[in-house]
């Protein structure tokens, strides 16, 4: 799937110019609120018309103002999951789920009711009314409803933004499953580094209505300058790892990554499972000799490949550890004291306890682990 966007749109004082292409499994549209990312997916879904420009999916033109083409939303076959689930209040959950299916030509229905219900763990909710569901349940039903219309592209507009941390943790695994177990390409709007780092294969960064950067998640997430100020503390390296073994005695899990072994608090995932972790730049210390007598368990050897001034007294240092770049944020004073330069051989030191649920992904909750 290739999503190709080239539009300009004006909404009051807000001017938007966006141009990008993405072919990722899950493309995050990332940026602070008011940066235009929600406007963009409303344009893609056909909820609004652009002033000028062209949007196509796999070569199928959805809108092209120059050629006077505008495919109405009900013919686009693009699934939408809104921040506020928007379930139909007068229908049961089962009828909400069946709604889109009914409008899909039989030959194009690839989504199976049972499979989707299982995937999202909503089998026990089918007879209920939306008003009787919790926020997390509503959002899962909304995802299922969109999926059962057998969309060609699934768009999610900050689906977790109105939920508390516990509910977010409840839904994230289902979205990971969706990404890994279905073939539908997903566009995911978010302003949270934690969500994007965990879910996205590709990221398009928005800033004030324009595309500031686009690329694979690992490359974007370690560029702290691209992150909105309030999320900068969350930025850092994103590594794809595999569970190597569990250390039952100390309650830890050992992950194998390109950069070396990384110990994190125990994860509820079997050996061999893929786990994506995020190493926040502020959690990384830098040493010029292999430290001894230190409590931190993760010590990764590498070479400094980039260095740039950050906010205030800080410098951001990129350390290439066997091909995986780990980012550290340290003070300029420390940098000078250690004499760090590009090419210096150093050790990145990360405390095991600095990994938490938000940056390791704790897997499906127990009830759904079937």
């Amino acid at each position, binding site marked *: 799937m290739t999503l190709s966007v080239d539009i300009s749109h004006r909404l009051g004082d807000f001017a938007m110019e966006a141009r990008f292409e993405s072919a990722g499994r899950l493309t995050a549209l990332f940026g602070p609120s008011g940066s235009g990312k929600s406007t963009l997916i409303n344009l893609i*879904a*056909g*909820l609004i018309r652009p002033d000028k420009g062209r949007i196509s999916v796999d070569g199928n033109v959805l809108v092209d103002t120059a050629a006077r083409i505008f495919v*109405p*939303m*009900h*013919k*686009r*076959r*693009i*699934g*939408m999951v*809104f921040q*506020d689930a*928007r*379930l*139909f*209040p*007068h229908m049961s959950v089962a009828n909400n789920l069946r*709604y*889109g299916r*009914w*409008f*899909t030509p039989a030959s194009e229905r690839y989504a199976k009711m049972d499979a989707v219900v299982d995937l999202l763990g909503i089998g026990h909710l089918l007879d209920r*009314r*939306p*008003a009787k569901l919790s926020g997390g349940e*509503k959002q899962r039903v909304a995802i299922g*409803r*969109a999926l059962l*219309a057998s969309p060609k592209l699934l768009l999610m507009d900050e689906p977790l933004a109105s939920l508390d941390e516990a509910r977010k943790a409840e839904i994230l695994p289902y979205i990971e499953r969706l990404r890994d177990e279905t073939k539908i390409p997903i566009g995911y709007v978010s302003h949270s580094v934690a969500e994007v780092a965990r879910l996205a294969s590709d990221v398009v960064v928005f800033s004030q209505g324009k595309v500031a950067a686009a690329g694979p998640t690992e490359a974007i997430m370690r560029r702290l300058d691209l992150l909105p100020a309030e999320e900068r503390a969350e930025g850092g390296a994103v590594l794809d790892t595999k569970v190597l073994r569990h250390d039952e005695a100390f309650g830890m899990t050992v992950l194998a990554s390109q950069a070396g072994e990384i110990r994190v608090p125990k994860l509820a995932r079997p050996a061999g499972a893929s786990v994506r972790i995020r190493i926040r730049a502020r959690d990384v210390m830098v040493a010029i000799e292999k430290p001894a007598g230190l409590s931190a368990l993760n010590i990764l050897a590498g070479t400094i490949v980039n260095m740039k001034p950050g906010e205030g007294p800080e410098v951001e240092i990129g350390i290439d550890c066997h091909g995986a770049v780990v980012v550290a944020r340290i003070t300029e004073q420390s940098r000078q004291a250690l004499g760090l330069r590009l090419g210096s051989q150093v050790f990145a030191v990360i405390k095991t306890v600095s990994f938490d649920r938000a940056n390791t992904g704790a897997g499906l909750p127990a009830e759904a682990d079937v």
Partner: protein
Amino acid sequence: MNWLLDLTPDEWNAVRLSIKVATVAMIASLPPGILIALLLARGRFWGKTLLNGLVHLPLILPPVVTGYLLLLTFGRRGPAGAFLAEHFGIVFSFRWTGAALACGVMGFPLMVRAIRLSIEAVDRRIEAAAGTLGANPLWVFATITLPLILPGLIAGAILSFAKAMGEFGATITFVSNIPNETQTLPSAIYTFTQVPGGDEGALRLTLISIVISMVALIASEVLARRVGPRMDIE
């Protein structure tokens, strides 16, 4: 109790006629009522204020004026009346159908108001969600909007029915007061009060119209409650 139910044939006819006229007026006003309410709630067009004023006119004008205007327009020699009689064989003047038309027109503003308010309360974002799921605007209306405004529809219909049961001025001006044809309950009561010794008949019919109105009101309450629990908006 016996004297209450011991109606003369003419009185029975007035009761039956009133119910028939009110029911027809209510059912016939529903489709245009929904359409106009939709236009007023959602439309953005030139002359919307004018349309709104026009719809509300029967509420402000003296009923006699409305009745007279109907007579001018839908009477045998009126432009609409002549056209309908010639091409469709529909005659309003001095027929019960005319009574239904007068009652429908008089109840129309009440019905449109109730429906319009309920349409305005519908969350359009839910309709947009239905659109992304593949429903075209007509299906969205039929499967989302219509069920969501059902309480408003019922309220509007009952208001229209109640207004029709009580309509007097416009009806008597337009289609007169002919027993068995256009003499509805209010006209019959009026007739009784105009003849010596008619007090008993007037009281009987008054009580009957109270009973009919109460039954209609209770029926609407029951209906609304049946629909109500399904409508718990998030």
